[in-house]
């Protein structure tokens, strides 16, 4: 029966069963990922984000939640223009992190 609305699917993440290898590796090589305050400046200025779903803030969140496939798909959109790095209030070297994830 269609009520014109529905319940959204559960976004429950089981932290015990997810694979965090990529994120842990990233934390080792780029400790500054820990300093992100999720302000979204990177997303607001993103050149690729203008045309696609690309958002570094969400990308980091996906990796923290072990959603690697989704993250890998999103990162392909990046143009490496570096605007995110320039606007980051925490001075995180986002461009380097993006490059490291794809390696």
């Amino acid at each position, binding site marked *: 029966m269609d009520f014109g609305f529905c319940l959204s699917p559960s976004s429950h993440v089981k932290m015990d069963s997810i694979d965090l290898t990529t994120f842990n590796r990233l934390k080792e090589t780029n400790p500054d990922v820990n300093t992100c305050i999720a302000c979204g400046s990177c997303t607001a200025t993103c050149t690729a984000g203008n045309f696609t779903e690309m958002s570094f803030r969400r990308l980091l969140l996906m990796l923290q939640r072990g959603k690697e496939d989704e993250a890998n798909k999103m990162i392909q*959109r990046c*143009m490496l*223009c570096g605007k995110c790095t*320039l606007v980051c209030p925490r001075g995180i070297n986002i461009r380097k992190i993006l490059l490291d994830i*794809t390696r």
Partner: protein
Amino acid sequence: MNSQIFHPFVLPFVLGMAFVLTYCFVGLIRVISQLPKDDRKKLGRSLVTPKTAWANIRDLFGDCLFHVKIWKRNPVLGYMHTAIAFGWFMIIVIGHVMLFTLKPLQGVEVEGLQGMFTNFYYPIFFKYFAEETPVFAFLMDFFLLMIISGILIAVVKKIHSKIVGVKRVMHFGFADTLIRFALWTIFPFRLIAEKTNIMAFWWLYSIDLLIFMCMLPFTRYMHIPTEALFILLRHAGIKVTEPRKGYALAELYSCPSCGLCIDACPMSVNDKMSGNTSAYFMKKLRNNDTEESQRIAETCLMCGKCVKICPLSIESCDIKFSQRAAVPYNINSDHSYLNVISTEAEKSQTNNHKPHVLYFAGCMTQLTPKIMRAMKQIMDKAGEDYQIMDENGGICCGRPMLLSGKVAEAKAMIEKNTELIKKSGAKRLVLSCPICYKVFKDEYHLEGIEILHHTQYIEELIKCGKIYVDRGDTKYVYHDPCELGRAFEIYDEPRYVIHSLGQIVDAKSEKENSICCGGSLGSFNLTQQERDAITENSVNDLMFNNPDEIVTACPLCLKTFARKSPVKVKDIAEIVSEKL
């Protein structure tokens, strides 16, 4: 003079020389065989083309022996190199001239193989075996003393480099230190041996030569034979394709680790960062230290200053670039979404308006919208028929992607932008960002469309009388952005524009010596703190003559300087729009 034709002390030299010659021959074959087929053809052609052949001869003497570029940068070091290189070359030449004019072997039966053998060492130990005429004796002593004077400067440089105007020098390992001492002692030993004829010194002289020659292939002195090959390859117009093969290999071995690039590098603000300079990169890559050379390649700002001031013009940035491109990626970019993008430029196609000027702000200008506003104001005032290609967001020009070594991915953006620009029907393309300007000039194929940076464009508008500006008395200093200045030598246009607006004062380092702002997209590894140190140094350099405002022509420089500058930082378009 001793009337012999052979003495065992010549053997160390003969052995060493034979080793070096064999090594160089094998190395030559290796480099040539690694060159792509087309490059080999290019090399062959360049050797017989009169123009390049003449350039070869000119540079083989001018560069290898005199090094005009070192003379221009630091006359003391210029003399040091000339004294040693030219002096040594001359005593070898004179030695051979004496061999064939004075005929020292007359009366002694030496022919065939034995004759060739004696000719091999005679010019080096001439004085032991035969008598010189006064003229030759004078010349030999003159050049020998010239070399020793050069070595004295080298010793002073080693003890206290600041006396000869060098702040930072290379730090060498055991092999390089040992060979340096061998080189320093060769000539004093020779002088003493010739003057006193004590056997021990002839032996020392010969053994020193053996040490020098045996270590030469494994140290920086390999630049002596390699440089000649490098000059030939450079004039043939060959480019680097792989980081450690062919032309790049010749470049690696030609680098004398002179360290001139260390003082020039913007990163040399402290000891730790000065290890990221090109001289160290070349050394690490030469020693096959892949990890370190990769790290330095990705840390470099790619400002191009080391290439500009290099006495040999070694394209170290090209090698770093190819080193970056050699890294494999697990996840490849997918920019297929670009195909469906239509921007303002494309939409305007529907109303059939073809603008004369197309303005591409670029990513960095999107972050500094005041530049775009100023440009609009200027173009409106000049009554230009223009259109802004990326007012509501455009596609990146591709240079940042290219700098990461991902050539194919950058091509996707380049193709899409080319398509959009061609569709607009504009005849001129004006850019506000030197980063874009470089890639548009180098990689885009926009036949029939004139590409201009806004400094050139504004200069033209002022010269044609399309805009009028008021001259004030503000003191400006101009910062040359790397990709505009060093890459395309656009030095005079911005200065003309600033001069028509007010007073222009000099920075401490200008034009091709300009110091990178520290914000460059070329570097991946530098942290914010390290970048800040570079920026502070660059700002101090610009504040040398106490200007009222810093003017630049790059949105990235503008943004970087604004964080650290004690005075206002403005783009050239901004100051023009203020005075319209």
